[in-house]
């Protein structure tokens, strides 16, 4: 365990001295700030069915597409490129500790970035103290449900990033692969559901299976406060699978 924490500290330090981390952070905060402002603006123009927070977090996939690749593309690809993985292997460290440390360091940063978005409703709440509807700005159940989903799905997204980074020596290729995988995971399920809606009866195995892999639907459930164990199994099992594959891939490097 000692190795693991040492490696996590090292990986976090590496992330903080890597330019892509700052690019990802700045782009993330700017984009999310703009989205939140646009949602508030649209709410002033016409009444909305859902709270600003639910609308805000429903666009979770948008920053994921660039933040996750930027945070993870370097992790293993760069080590492979510089051959520094070999140096790490020469120390008495289990290989899974190397992969997990890279995963947790990137996940930690991912969580920090999302935690920063909590400032948006808080700032708005404080700036509009007399607004009668300001309670909806900090709708705690929607915030908690959405954040729980983001933290859970983040495990899979970061695992995808770490896995794709282990497939190549090029950061650029790793980033592009990660983007492609994330696009398929985030948008693929929803598009598949749309495309096959008329072909499978509701409640049938295929209909249920397609709904099971629809990440957008998972978010909708979480933001409404519906907690189901199936998404937990979905995200955690695929993440474990991808991280195990990553351990095997770096093992084959020796």
């Amino acid at each position, binding site marked *: 365990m*000692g*190795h693991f924490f*040492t*490696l996590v500290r*090292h990986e976090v330090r*590496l992330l903080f*001295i*890597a330019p892509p981390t700052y690019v990802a952070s700045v782009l993330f905060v700017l984009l999310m700030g703009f989205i939140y402002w646009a949602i508030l603006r649209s709410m002033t123009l016409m009444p909305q069915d859902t709270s600003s927070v639910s609308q805000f977090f429903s666009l979770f996939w948008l920053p994921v597409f660039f933040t996750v690749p930027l945070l993870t593309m370097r992790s293993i690809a760069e080590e492979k490129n*510089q*051959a*520094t993985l*070999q*140096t*790490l*292997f*020469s*120390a*008495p*460290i*289990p290989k899974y500790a190397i992969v997990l440390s890279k995963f947790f360091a990137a996940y930690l940063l991912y969580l920090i970035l999302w935690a920063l978005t909590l400032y948006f409703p808080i700032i708005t709440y404080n700036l509009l103290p007399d607004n009668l509807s300001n309670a909806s700005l900090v709708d705690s159940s929607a915030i908690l449900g959405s954040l729980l989903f983001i933290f859970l799905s983040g495990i899979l997204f970061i695992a995808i990033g770490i896995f794709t980074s282990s497939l190549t020596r090029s950061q650029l290729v790793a980033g592009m692969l990660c983007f492609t995988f994330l696009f398929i995971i985030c948008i693929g399920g929803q598009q598949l559901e749309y495309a096959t809606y008329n072909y499978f009866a509701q409640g049938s195995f295929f209909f249920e299976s397609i709904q099971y892999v629809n990440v957008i639907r998972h978010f909708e459930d979480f933001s409404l406060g519906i907690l189901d164990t199936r998404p937990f199994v979905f995200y955690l099992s695929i993440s474990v699978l991808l991280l195990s594959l990553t351990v095997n891939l770096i093992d084959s490097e*020796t």
Partner: protein
Amino acid sequence: MDENSSISVSDLSKSYGKVSAIKNASFQINKGEIVGLLGPNGAGKSTTMRILGGLLSADSGSATVCGLPVADNSLAIKRKIGFMQENNPLPEELRVMEYLKLRAELKEVDPQKISNEVRRVMDLCDLFRTARRKIIRTLSKGFKQRVGIADALIGSPEIIILDEPTIGLDPHQIQGIRKLINSLRGHYTVLISSHILSEIERNCDRVIIINHGRVVAMGTLHELSEEFINENYLKLQVSGKIEHLIDHLKTAGEEYEIEEEANAENEAYTILIKSTNALEIAHYTKMIDQISHCQLKGINIKQPDLEAIFLAATKRSWEEVRTKS
């Protein structure tokens, strides 16, 4: 296994697909020895070292490090070995001190002793004064090699493995690394690989020559020269009427070679006499004294160097391979 042995390898084999990297390699390295693993590029030196370092598994055979079988104890082995890999890959963005502290933590040095340990290895490798705060990317190749060696020394492992520690260095840097390796003598068991013969010759107590994955020779320089060099050499430096000496040598049926002609800078000829029998200096001194207009300027027995031994050993292994095929 011998109690005095640090590394023991028996019938070790490793293939990469159809290419055989090591074939039935067997050798032993004793505690405190500095041993050179010598061979041409692609001979299997790095593969052997990586197996000993617990980085690679062998296909067959056994390797024991400090009494522990490598195949079953790769993590325990890594605690006993300091390994500097070929090309010495280092994280370029870290400072020297940061990197060595990280390595000390990963090598399980007592947290309270990490600062002292890092200071010790930096002093040993002459890094503390000049390079401790420098970013690794900005270091010269020589200093990077020193960082790699300092890393290998952290935690005082029993065995140090250095894979091509002097590759790509200029003569000044090579001299620095050589001094550093010599300072390890007696404190650690050191295994160095190189294809630079002079480095191995100067640094090592014993040499293992490996060619095409096979150990073709091992021993001290003296033992190897006895095994592989059947001829004795005598070097004569003579001025004057050299033709008279040549006539004498021809008459006596001696095998000789004029290595260097006389010139404006050096009026003496250098003649190399070869013989399978023992060559006595007194005999040749007397012979030249008796030749008129011929003066002896220098005479010495030429010791066979590692280059000659290496060429003879690898040539023999080539011939064996050719005979078998």
